[in-house]
């Protein structure tokens, strides 16, 4: 993390030592052939905070997530989740991680409960504990009555809720959300953003949420702006807006990413 960010951290939590980072990414680079998708990206996430990873389409957000989840390998740079390096201790690192991918990935032919039980078993949760967690999480997301329903019969918003529940089954320290609101109606988007902030605040989960929609970034969030594979701004929302000389985040995002010629304020109507 750079000096500016460190000084901001110290203003946010002055009385105590900052908590150890849940996610530490250092000098991470990745290329698809000759196309450099990520270029020396570094970031740190601390418990109980939501960090918005804001960037236009093609900025490298999904590539970054694929590297953090160990789906892609990179020899350039390091990733640690709760102190476990993804390259050397992949299983221990991934045991701390919950993820919601951009594409919806539930098994449509199975029920909500069957999907969750399948994933709980993959995470190693014993049967009784899995059942208790599933009941609690379905209550939390308001889908207890859909427990036996086939996923195929659920709406897009309900499926997304189930995916969030699935990511939380094993009580992860780190939750990654890759553009989770795509295709959702306004009410579900609002619920999702509020729920994510509630999770960070009440359960102390560190959350990294990729988005290209500026209206999904809350004033209290940490913000990392990614463009063409590089971190071009970071800090709290007000700081980033002020440093860019803009009046609001929408304008700041346009200014910051305008060099690439493909920015695009993402405020969704």
């Amino acid at each position, binding site marked *: 993390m750079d000096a500016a960010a460190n000084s901001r951290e110290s203003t946010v939590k002055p009385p105590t030592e900052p908590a150890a980072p849940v996610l530490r990414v250092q000098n991470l680079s990745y290329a*698809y052939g000759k196309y450099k998708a990520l270029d020396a990206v570094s970031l740190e996430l601390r418990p109980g905070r939501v960090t918005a990873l804001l960037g236009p389409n093609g900025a490298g957000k999904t590539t970054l997530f694929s590297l953090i989840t160990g789906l892609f390998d990179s020899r350039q740079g390091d990733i640690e989740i709760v102190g476990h390096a993804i390259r050397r201790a992949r*299983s221990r*690192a991934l*045991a701390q991680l919950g993820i919601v991918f*951009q594409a919806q*990935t539930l098994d449509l032919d199975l029920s909500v409960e069957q999907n969750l039980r399948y994933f709980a078993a993959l995470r*190693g949760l014993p049967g009784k504990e899995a059942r208790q967690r599933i009941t609690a999480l379905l209550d939390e997301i308001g889908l207890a009555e859909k427990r036996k329903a086939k996923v195929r019969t659920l709406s897009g918003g309900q499926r997304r809720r189930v995916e969030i529940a699935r990511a939380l089954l094993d009580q992860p320290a780190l939750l990654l959300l890759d553009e989770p609101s795509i295709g959702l109606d306004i009410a579900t988007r609002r619920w999702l953003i509020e729920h994510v902030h509630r999770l960070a605040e009440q359960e102390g989960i560190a959350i990294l949420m990729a988005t290209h929609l500026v209206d999904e970034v809350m004033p209290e969030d940490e913000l990392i702006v990614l463009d063409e594979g590089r971190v071009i701004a970071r800090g709290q929302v007000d700081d980033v807006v002020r440093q860019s000389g803009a009046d609001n985040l929408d304008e700041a995002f346009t200014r910051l990413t305008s060099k690439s010629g493909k920015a695009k304020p993402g405020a969704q109507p």
Partner: protein
Amino acid sequence: MSPAHAGRAFLAILLRELLRFVQQRERFFAALVRPLVWLLVFAAGFRATLGLSIIPPYETYITYDVYVVPGLIGLIQLFNGMQNSLSMVYDREMGSMRVLLATPLPRGFLLIARMLSGTAVSIIQVYAFLAIAALCGTEVPPEGLLPLLPVLIVTGLALSALGMFLSSRIRQLENFAGVMNFLIFPMFFMSSALYPLWRVREGSVLLYEFCRFNPFTYMVELVRSALYLQFNATALAVVVATLLVFGTAALIGYTPARGGPAAGRPGGG
């Protein structure tokens, strides 16, 4: 990964495959109709015109429908292996394979579990086919049904490994049909599934040589031997070698970076 975690995860993957198989009734019927058409239509027609001399492992003259049963068992497993392969490409394209691979389980374990669960489904199909064949009057030696089981596990795994190897090489779902046409039918027809090799040699020495180098021939012969309580060491060696070669190639070659949402190419987000 503890043994309990591994056991739970394997059972979950197996149960998911079985549930999907049971719930997709069309798939179950399609899997049975294909060999039954060969048995009840094709073999019935040839039964009157084609005479077979006494060849091992048979100890007496047999009718043509009895001869083709091992080949049709192989056909069931061949199609099932390819169905698994298609399912893996589909899962990768849809992103659900990413969820599986982002769990704290070794990638090799997950792929082997997928192969084993696919094999289990094919074994259910084989025994259902044999039951219907027997009901339709085709002689199926009951004493061979139990020795057949371990053979079906090995042949099923070898064909699943072949399917997984293919899925590791195929970038997109659209490419799958072409590969299948160039694989399933040549493998099936250029083998001892429908006619004994000595008959093939009478017709074409070149075709005979193709059949001799086709691992599917040895899978069919291994099944044929097991059904009649004989042991074919050469066939077993070839089938195991096929399993090891394609299994190893699949485990090394399988990467989520090939195909899938935003995988292996820029522009995902």
